[in-house]
């Protein structure tokens, strides 16, 4: 059978086909066009940067920014020093082990130093964290941390276990209710979640808007397949987060970076899904449509598009998952609002209960989104897998 197949020459038939639009077997990537696309990419890069790029004013601007950030970090250092009265670095300023170890190194070593250190901690907890008016530390927590100063042992991480590292379910529930009503720094968790969701919606929308037509074009036309193969294969393996530093420079901290990063995260997935979708159409379906008098555009709209819906939906579901994960990570540094930034902010203030609530909310929203997609899928494409 294999030999006969080879002799029947599927490849050979392509040159004699009268209509190839919608015929997946007739579409292959043309390497010549891939090369053109690669050259075009490099030329575009060069043009986009060289003539207008790093001129003097931009360079000065960059220098100024560096200077500013240097001054800023000096100020921060001074503030830190001021925070840590009596020369004590605060072991609870960060839950990470390395900070704990660093703190231990500076912890009082002699009996005489301990009371001073304790005083420093108490003072800071009561008055020092002025930017967190909603987050007064409980007496118990202050005592725990004062105790930490006394018993600081670099080899004993177990001391770190406690409300500050992993809150109990009860604490988490309490914190959830607080986040729900008063919020973290006066922004409720719903607002953070809403911000994040709205970013995902926009990112996915534009990602699909760009990706689906390109994917269809690649699935249906050998030249366009060749042209888009290069950028798709080059950019697709890049983890979106690797572009975060660049995007922050281009779009600043906030929505611009987050949404563009999500477009980048979803566009390749949607291209691949649409390309696969366009190629799953059975030749007999396309031929039947042509025989029934359909035009090319009718074949596209009435056959190829509905036929590709299952693949597109799979793409949307994958893209949604990836986008949601990417977004939260991107918000850690790339934004000042959203669930990710809330978590990061909370971490900096050792509010692990807030962190845990944030994580749970992220997980629940992720599950809900997938359930919604599955429901939509069963309603919109009931024929899936039954063809």
């Amino acid at each position, binding site marked *: 059978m294999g030999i006969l197949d080879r002799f029947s*020459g599927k*490849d050979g038939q392509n040159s004699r086909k*009268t*209509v190839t639009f919608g015929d997946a077997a007739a579409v292959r990537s043309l390497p010549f066009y891939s090369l053109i696309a690669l050259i075009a990419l490099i030329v575009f890069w060069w043009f986009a940067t060289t003539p207008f790029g790093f001129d003097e004013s931009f360079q000065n601007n960059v220098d100024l920014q560096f200077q500013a950030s240097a001054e800023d970090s000096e100020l921060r250092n001074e503030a830190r020093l001021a925070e840590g009265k009596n020369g004590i670095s605060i072991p609870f300023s960060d839950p990470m082990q390395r900070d704990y170890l660093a703190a231990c190194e500076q912890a009082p070593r002699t009996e005489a130093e301990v009371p001073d250190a304790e005083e420093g901690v108490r003072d800071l907890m009561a008055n020092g964290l002025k930017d967190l008016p909603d987050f007064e530390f409980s007496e118990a927590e202050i005592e725990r941390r004062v105790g930490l100063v006394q018993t600081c042992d670099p080899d004993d991480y177990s001391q770190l276990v406690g409300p500050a590292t992993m809150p109990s379910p009860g604490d988490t529930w309490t914190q959830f209710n607080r986040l729900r009503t008063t919020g973290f720094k006066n922004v409720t968790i719903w607002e953070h979640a809403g911000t994040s969701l709205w970013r995902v919606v926009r990112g996915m929308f534009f990602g699909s808007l760009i990706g689906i037509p390109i994917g269809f074009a690649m699935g249906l036309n050998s030249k366009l397949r060749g042209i888009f193969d290069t950028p798709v294969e080059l950019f697709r393996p890049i983890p979106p987060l690797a572009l975060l530093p660049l995007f922050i420079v281009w779009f600043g901290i906030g929505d611009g970076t987050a949404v563009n990063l999500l477009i980048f995260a979803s566009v390749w997935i949607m291209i691949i899904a649409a390309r696969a979708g366009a190629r799953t159409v059975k030749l*007999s379906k396309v031929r039947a449509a*042509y*025989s029934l008098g359909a035009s090319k555009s009718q074949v596209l709209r*009435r056959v190829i598009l*509905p036929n590709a819906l299952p693949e597109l939906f799979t793409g949307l579901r994958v893209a949604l998952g990836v986008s949601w994960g990417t977004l939260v990570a991107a918000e850690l540094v790339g934004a000042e609002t959203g669930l990710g930034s809330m978590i990061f902010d909370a971490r900096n203030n050792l509010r692990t209960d807030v962190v845990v609530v944030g994580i749970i909310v992220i997980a629940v929203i992720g599950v809900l989104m997938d359930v919604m997609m599955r429901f939509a899928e069963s309603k919109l494409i009931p024929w899936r897998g039954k*063809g």
Partner: protein
Amino acid sequence: MKDLKVDSVGMIYEIPGGQAVEALKDVSFELEAGRLLTLLGPSGCGKTTLLNILAGFLAPTAGVVSLNDKRITKPGRDRGMVFQQGALFEWLSVAENISFGPRMNHKKSAEYAPRVEELLEIVGLAGFGDKQVYELSGGMQQRVALARCLANDPDIILMDEPLGALDALTREKMQGLILNIWKETGKTIVLVTHSVEEALYLGDRLFVMAPRPGRIHKDYTLPFAEQGLTADARELKKSPDFAEKREEILNMIWEMEEQIMGTGV
């Protein structure tokens, strides 16, 4: 002049490696309107290629194919296709599938709706219009495919192993349906099949094709299709005439297969 004319048609493919394969060589025939032609032959004899050329999906490398004195160069509404299976549109209901052709040609619902009902009746699916195609059995799906093709009122119906994926019983029923439709509509039908019995029973003309190069080996004119319209199918297939022809053709194809194997391929 609704005749189908095939004049010296040849088809040569280049396969990767530069080899040329002669899928069809010098195929010529005329088919008067209203005949039912069946194409039979071993794998690789070019029967599906020929059908695809008639449909206008492939352009032959030599020769001319014309219907009603009009040269065939691309697919058209005058030639309806029925495929083996899976060529229905799952996202449409049965009635929407049948009305696909008229709708693509911008006909109004009032124009085609009564015809759709009529066609459902003809293929034995009255009342199934609102069902989804994936809810139907294989045989019923092929009935829909037939109706969809008829909705466009083509001059000729091309069938590419339309019953190939059906079980024996359904297959027999569908053969009867094809004969009835052939008689009632008077359409020209060209049907490709692997089954000798089916080719004999349905074809009032039958080509046994041979491979390498693909060509018409033997051209039969048969009485069974006409008889089948009135006589019982089982009885007819048991008749000595039928059995004799069946053995003759089976031997012919068997010899061809042996020749292919014998050449060491």
